[in-house]
């Protein structure tokens, strides 16, 4: 039997050594996750299926009854709903993070990783990188469908890229929410039921309906929902007809781009701390 032992690196406590390996370990996890997608495209399709069905349903089924522009039912609804769809897809993405994290915990993978001399941060960073890559593919797919059904971004190339940047920024923040919840829930079954949380968070927002059309208190909640801020910000960047012309009903709507930068930053700070704490709790 060949003896394979690690040459114990003398400088293993040095910062450069640890950083290099943190990156390498992260990449190993990313490759693992991407292999999952390649091996089981159905999971990926399933995750994408929901937003795609929603796009078609809201645009063709409900959309015809919605008057969001004040120019009559159905007019300009694709332009209003598409940015909302992008934002909601990012928002629901936290479940795509939480579920595999819960699964890794439940199936003993987390224990195996933690008992190995690998970089502990790689479990989270690897997850984050692969989730962001997946989010890019999500956005590209939904964007392609949107183009087919007649949606066009109205802004410059720079504005359009900035809009997608803000979407990924929201998704990035939600990685930490997903990791926290994934570690927090008891098992994958509980992770699956996070959908019940995701639904109101996704829908009580400006994604499909302007908050000013909702009852007063609900409208306020919807307007202040971070998902609304991202949706509002990218509507501005896409130059969605009818957006930004009237005086905003809620203060936050007038500052959508700023809010779309600040909200995810706040979420990241709060949930990164919570996630790290939850991770340390595994050793308790």
């Amino acid at each position, binding site marked *: *039997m*060949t*003896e*394979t*032992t*690690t040459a*114990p690196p*003398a400088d*293993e406590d040095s910062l450069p050594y640890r950083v290099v*390996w943190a990156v*390498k*370990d992260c990449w*190993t996890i990313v*490759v*693992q996750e991407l*292999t*999952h997608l390649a*091996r*089981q495209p159905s999971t990926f399709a399933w995750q994408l299926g929901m937003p795609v069905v929603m796009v078609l349903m809201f645009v063709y089924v409900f959309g015809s009854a919605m008057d969001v522009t004040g120019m009559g039912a159905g007019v300009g609804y694709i332009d209003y709903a598409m940015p909302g769809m992008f934002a909601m897809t990012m928002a629901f993405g936290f479940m795509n993070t939480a579920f595999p994290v819960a699964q890794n915990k*439940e*199936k*003993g*993978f987390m*224990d*195996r*990783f*933690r*008992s*190995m*001399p*690998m970089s502990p941060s*790689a479990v989270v960073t690897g997850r984050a990188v692969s989730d962001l890559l997946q989010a890019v593919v999500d956005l590209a797919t939904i964007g392609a469908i949107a183009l087919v059904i007649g949606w066009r971004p109205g802004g410059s190339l720079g504005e359009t890229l900035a809009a997608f940047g803000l979407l990924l920024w929201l998704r990035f923040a939600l990685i930490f929410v997903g990791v926290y919840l994934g570690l927090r829930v008891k098992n994958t079954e509980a992770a699956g039921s996070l959908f019940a949380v995701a639904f109101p968070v996704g829908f009580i927002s400006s994604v499909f309906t302007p908050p000013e059309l909702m009852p007063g208190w609900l409208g306020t909640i919807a307007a202040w929902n971070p998902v609304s801020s991202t949706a509002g910000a990218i509507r501005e960047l896409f130059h969605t007809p009818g957006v930004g012309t009237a005086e905003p009903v809620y203060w936050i709507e007038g500052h959508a781009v700023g809010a779309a930068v600040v909200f995810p930053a706040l979420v990241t700070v709060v949930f990164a701390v919570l996630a790290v704490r939850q991770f340390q709790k*595994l*050793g*308790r």
Partner: protein
Amino acid sequence: MSIPPDDGAPAIRARGLTKRFKNTLALDGVDLTVPRGTVHGLLGPNGAGKTTAVRILTTLTRLDAGTAEVSGHDVRTAPRQVRRAIGLTGQQTAVDDLLTARQNLTMFGRLFRLDRATARRRADELLEQFGLAGAADRAPKKFSGGMRRRLDLAASMILSPQVLFLDEPTTGLDPAGRREVWQVVRRLAAEGTTVLLTTHYLDEADQLCDRISVIHEGRNFVEDTPVGLKRRIGDERIEVTAADLADLTEVQALVARAAGTEPEVDDLAGVVSAPVADGVRALTVVAADLRAHGMDVADIGLRRPTLDEAFLQLTGTPVASDLTAREVS
């Protein structure tokens, strides 16, 4: 710089391991010493603290009090050195069902910080050693329980660890799967790997371990060799099964004479048994007497108490459900 491979320190040395979870004291001062190159069993009923002990020794759980060294490294102050010296196969089979067997081992190899080529070579070696070469490019999802467990074990052997921890390695496996895993453990032990194994299957501890520590309610209960453990709870018994129930009284008399004590008789099964101090002598005498009286027996033999019985006697708690069945029969 190199870590001295053997400075005489035992593979595992733990003193006064204490761990409290919210309301329960999972470990209440457990001591454990495992010399290098031995297979040591941690035996106890569910909730005895076996898994907690393994989790502490593999750096997964912090200990509240006590000290623990694995391969000479303190789990508290040098967890990274400990991690490089150990392999862990936990209660669940922690293999990635979507990667192939080879991809699994290569991935773990990379995470154990082998370079790409070495990780690949090591994966192939392990697949060969663990009898998985033919299934290398299949995903473990479709494997039998025994195969999945072997892949799991292979993943903990990437660095040829000095100490291998197996937490209930055969729970949930069918008999064939258990035998597969036992063979692997025996081979690894023969190659010099120190193994700490938790189980609540007593025959498993009996089959594999050099020494067994029985823990009960978070404390050391007793530690001994499997044979010694059985000896502790009493003598061997001579057991004769009469071929014809009509001979039972006479068999009983012969056994009583040889054993010097009044035997127990199971009228229905036709079994006569009695504790004996010198088993071999008693067996010879009874066999000769039976022959002299021209009596047929279905079975005759010496039986040591099973570990089930030993455990019941030592702790007053039955361990496995099959114990009840055996007691009744």
